[in-house]
């Protein structure tokens, strides 16, 4: 149990007849960052709400830091840092007031001035929440989530509405969280965010898990999808295509493209075929899939 920050098993979340989450299982190890990646409406926020104890699952089980988020709500809350997708703050409270309020709830709070500095909010300490821009409100919500020195933080679309600089600051902050041993479960629809921050990525689509793994595993599992070979022109490639589950074309004279899901064996076979054909191979290039290719392939057909 010590090793696991969040354990979600076969969780179903329904709103009336609409099934938002349909049998999702995932694990966030202690000290790791897990990104829930998916389009709007994929069920990410619904799953997060269940982990945060705002509602119970309609089926399945959730354990957060070994506790039940609904039944053990009051014991769990001081150990969590929660950042909602939006709102959650009195519009007429100043940034400084509200951060100090949340700090006063904690036994060992962080220094609020340090946190305001770190998130570039010091000059807004006396500004009311409603006068902050969307990105500034997001950063304040992040500060509120962190001020109690939690073991585990839930970040729902943490960089939504932030400009490039603020996003960079936030990413660096999340990196420091991991470095200091805080576990993080975040949702995002930004591929670069998931790829650069997360130890584990869970891709959700229409309420189910479409794929799961480290960013490297996800791209590696998809393999190499394009092999470019430069050799003598006008080779009889139809014979090669027949032996492969791939499309082989000669795009320009002497430039062959082999497109398809290629593993090591099939690449060896392709190069062997060129050797057998007596061709002089002068260049070989591969193109690996990116997380974006994986993601788009998995969520194809979903509304964009």
């Amino acid at each position, binding site marked *: 149990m010590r090793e696991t920050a969040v354990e979600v098993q076969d969780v179903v979340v329904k709103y009336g007849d609409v099934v938002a989450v349909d049998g999702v299982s995932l694990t966030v190890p202690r000290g790791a960052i897990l990104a829930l990646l998916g389009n709007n409406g994929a069920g990410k926020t619904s799953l997060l709400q269940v982990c945060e104890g*705002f509602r119970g699952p309609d089926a399945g089980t959730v354990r957060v830091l070994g506790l039940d988020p609904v039944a053990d709500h*009051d014991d769990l809350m001081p150990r969590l840092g929660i950042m909602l997708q939006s709102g959650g*703050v*009195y519009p*007429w409270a100043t940034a400084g007031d509200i951060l100090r309020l949340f700090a*006063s709830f904690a036994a060992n709070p962080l220094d609020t001035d340090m946190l305001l500095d770190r998130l570039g909010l010091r000059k807004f300490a006396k500004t009311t929440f409603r006068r902050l821009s969307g990105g500034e409100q997001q950063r304040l919500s992040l500060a509120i989530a962190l001020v109690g020195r*939690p073991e585990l933080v839930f970040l729902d679309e943490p960089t939504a509405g932030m400009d490039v600089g603020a996003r960079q600051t936030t990413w660096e902050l999340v990196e420091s969280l991991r470095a200091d041993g805080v576990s993080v479960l975040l949702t995002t629809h930004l591929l670069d965010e998931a790829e650069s921050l997360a130890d584990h990525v869970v891709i959700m689509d229409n309420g189910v898990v479409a794929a799961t793994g480290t960013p490297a595993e996800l791209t590696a599992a998809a393999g190499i999808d394009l092999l470019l070979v430069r050799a003598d022109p006008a080779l009889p490639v139809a014979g090669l295509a027949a032996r492969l589950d791939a499309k082989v074309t000669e795009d320009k004279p002497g430039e062959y493209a082999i497109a398809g899901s290629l593993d090591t064996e099939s690449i060896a076979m392709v190069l062997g075929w060129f050797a057998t054909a007596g061709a002089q191979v002068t260049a070989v290039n591969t193109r690996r899939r990116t997380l974006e290719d994986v993601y788009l392939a998995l969520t194809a057909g979903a509304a964009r």
Partner: protein
Amino acid sequence: MTTESGTFTPAPGRAPMRAILRQQVRMELLLTARRGEAVVLAMGVPLLVLLGAGLTEATNVPGDDRLGFVVPGVLALTVMSTAFTGQAITTGYERSYGVLKRLGASPLTRPGLLFSKTAAIGCLVALQVLALALVGVVVGWRPELSQILPAVGVTALATAAYCGLALLLASLLRPETTTAAATLIYVLMLAAGGIMFAAPDLGPAGSFLLPLAAHADALRHALTEGSSVPVSSWLSLTLWAAVALTGAARKFRWE
């Protein structure tokens, strides 16, 4: 980066609950004080009624003792404006802004949040009633103090009933509609609740239909006449409190 590593090393824990509740009540009071319209509604309107109806012949009141009729009514009115109207509007917006949801998911906890709100309302009601009673005394009202405890008792009951109604309203309606409804009810009660002039004679049913009239009547008996609070007032306010709090407990929504 300027932050040293180890800054975020987990050290979770809840501050002592008394300190948490004190800070939350302080925040609730601070935010109320910052909202000008809330202060006007809670203090300005009752003050205007007190001075207008209490010192001039602008309205007809039963009996000869104008201040003896008007001041207890104004005290009852200010309880309603804070515990019902102000509370309903604030709660409606706090729900729509996600504040209730967020604070409920903090070390404050949901029961702690409800306690803080109640305590803040209690503080405000006490402050306002004292301030307005003081103004009443300054302009010539001479309350009887022998029945002060029953007067405090019915005021606590009325506060509970109004709080319940406010939370119920804010849970059933959108915040804009809540604001409109709570303000409309305030104006209707101000007109028909027996504050500036006698309430419409509805017979014994009157004090059950109009909690404001029942509260005002009870305060007049206790503070102006020094007599005991009528049983009908006790019954009416107890009934209102029971129904409103039960309804609020069943229907209250955090988000």
